[in-house]
């Protein structure tokens, strides 16, 4: 049944550009980007058991990489932008990860939060470099070297860019599937379940946590770069702690102990946010209530509802 549902969902997103209205298609673009971000974040949280409250740092890093390359350096090839975002994330994640994975639980969370806020302050204050609160524009990129100059902005986004983003999400999903199913993924789950025991049977706990941190950062920045294309802007709020909080919310919503939870969480969050925002100015209030209901009644998220297995912590 899960396979059928997954197949139908895949068909639906593939066919959407022919049937869905443009507005809804543009909503799917951030959902694809967040899907990539959350696949990475969930390797850290769902698989390894480390909850980051500063993951938006890497999303912002990806977006600013896209902005710096397109606006600053005139590099418009999206493949180059994505590769640069991944590289920048790895560069930043190596020193941060070496520091952060020395800590676990709340200390890890607080330290990642602190680094996220440091990066936010940097983006906000270094006006000449980052554009301050106005941010930097992200220009329309070339996709596989093609400009699609005859298409208007919306046609470009819901046409070629839509499929580009979808393909990237598919690749990211496959890559993460391999990682989670690898010997490395097994070691990460062992670390999540019982780090002392994992160490006793020869797992290098800190080293593998570090690898997971760097992989999550790379996924975050690639998603961030992709996210910045439809918005056309990289601004400091991308690094703000509430954005990190939203990422965690999406994971809880979709279900962090299910491989596809991140994708469902991203999609439902974006659609829900759009719906609730159009109904009421108090959408944050509604979202707070939804989060409370999810945590209390559906701790395993939406995919936990479909899955009859008992929760792993039960």
């Amino acid at each position, binding site marked *: 049944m899960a396979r059928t549902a997954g197949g139908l969902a895949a068909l639906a997103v593939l066919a959407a550009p022919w049937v869905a209205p443009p507005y809804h298609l543009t909503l799917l673009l951030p959902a694809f980007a967040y899907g990539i971000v959350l696949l990475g974040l969930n390797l850290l949280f769902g698989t390894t058991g480390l909850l980051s409250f500063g993951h938006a740092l890497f999303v912002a890093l990806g977006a600013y990489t896209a902005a710096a390359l397109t606006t600053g350096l005139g590099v418009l090839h999206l493949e180059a932008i994505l590769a640069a975002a991944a590289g920048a994330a790895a560069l930043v994640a190596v020193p941060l990860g070496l520091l952060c994975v020395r800590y676990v639980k709340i200390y890890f969370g607080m330290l990642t939060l602190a680094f996220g806020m440091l990066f936010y302050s940097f983006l906000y204050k270094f006006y000449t470099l980052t554009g301050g609160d106005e941010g930097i524009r992200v220009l329309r990129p070339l996709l596989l070297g093609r400009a699609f100059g005859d298409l208007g902005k919306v046609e470009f986004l819901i046409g070629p860019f839509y499929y580009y983003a979808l393909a990237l999400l598919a690749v990211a999903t496959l890559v993460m599937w391999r990682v989670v199913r690898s010997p490395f*993924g097994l070691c990460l*789950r062992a670390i999540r*379940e019982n780090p002392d*025991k994992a160490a006793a049977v020869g797992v*290098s706990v800190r080293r593998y946590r570090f690898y997971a941190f760097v992989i999550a950062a790379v996924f975050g920045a690639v998603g961030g770069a992709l996210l910045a294309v439809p918005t056309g802007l990289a601004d400091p709020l991308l690094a703000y702690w509430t954005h990190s909080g939203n990422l965690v919310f999406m994971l809880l919503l979709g279900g962090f102990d299910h491989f596809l939870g991140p994708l469902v969480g991203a999609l439902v969050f974006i659609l829900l946010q759009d719906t609730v925002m159009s109904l009421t100015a108090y959408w944050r209030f509604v979202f707070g209530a939804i989060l409370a209901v999810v945590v209390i009644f559906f701790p395993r998220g939406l995919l936990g509802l479909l899955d009859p297995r008992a929760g792993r912590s039960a």
Partner: protein
Amino acid sequence: MSLLQARDVRMFYGTFCALDGVSLSIEAGQFVSIIGPNGAGKTTLVNVLTGLLAPTSGSVRFKGVDVAGLGPGRLARLGMARSFQLVSVFPALTVGETLAVPIVSRRRHGARLFAALAGDRATWDEVAETAALFGLADKLARPARTLPQGDKKLLDVASAFALRPEVILMDEPTSGVSTSDKHAIMETLVGAAARMGIQAIIQVEHDMDIVFGYSDRIVALHQGRVLADATPDAVRADERLIDTVVGRSYSSGAGRPW
């Protein structure tokens, strides 16, 4: 040459002397039980022998390498494994996955990010083989948290054995297990050790039936000193020793000493 050698180990916690000049040499082929009343320094000794604690003075060498501060990972690669007194499992991992973790780490496959574990026949064959030795073959797909306590204990020890160490140290391998299961567990452990090529077993144990039934050497600790280091027969014959370390009741055959 001895596998594991402790030389004049002293261990102080503040001013309290937990180990007072302990020297030990463990040879291949030995099953050694460390006994002694509570507070005699047994667990401290195991912690020092496995490098978890660095002794205040003296040294512990395993195959010629100083183990102090080596850490469990490097110790495992060197050929020494340990199981703890409290049962420790990976609750959500299945029995098969649990046994795969030490096998993967022993083969240094842990950093293989994109290899498919499911298709790794050699690993799963060894998982099945290990599970069979410990009577867990029909429970491979069960999450560890759903196992009965005795099976959890076996799984815990089996995952240490799966590292295929030369020496294994077990802190009360039968603690928390019903008396009726104790002998079954010991039979399983001893059988598995022989089949898996483990050369020496060191255990801390309170249950004298287990100690006298399985070990071929007994190290009796009292107030941080080695009071006796002898065969079970020699220990049994020494009434003064039995009184001090084991308790009167064992020699009179009245059941558990404490």
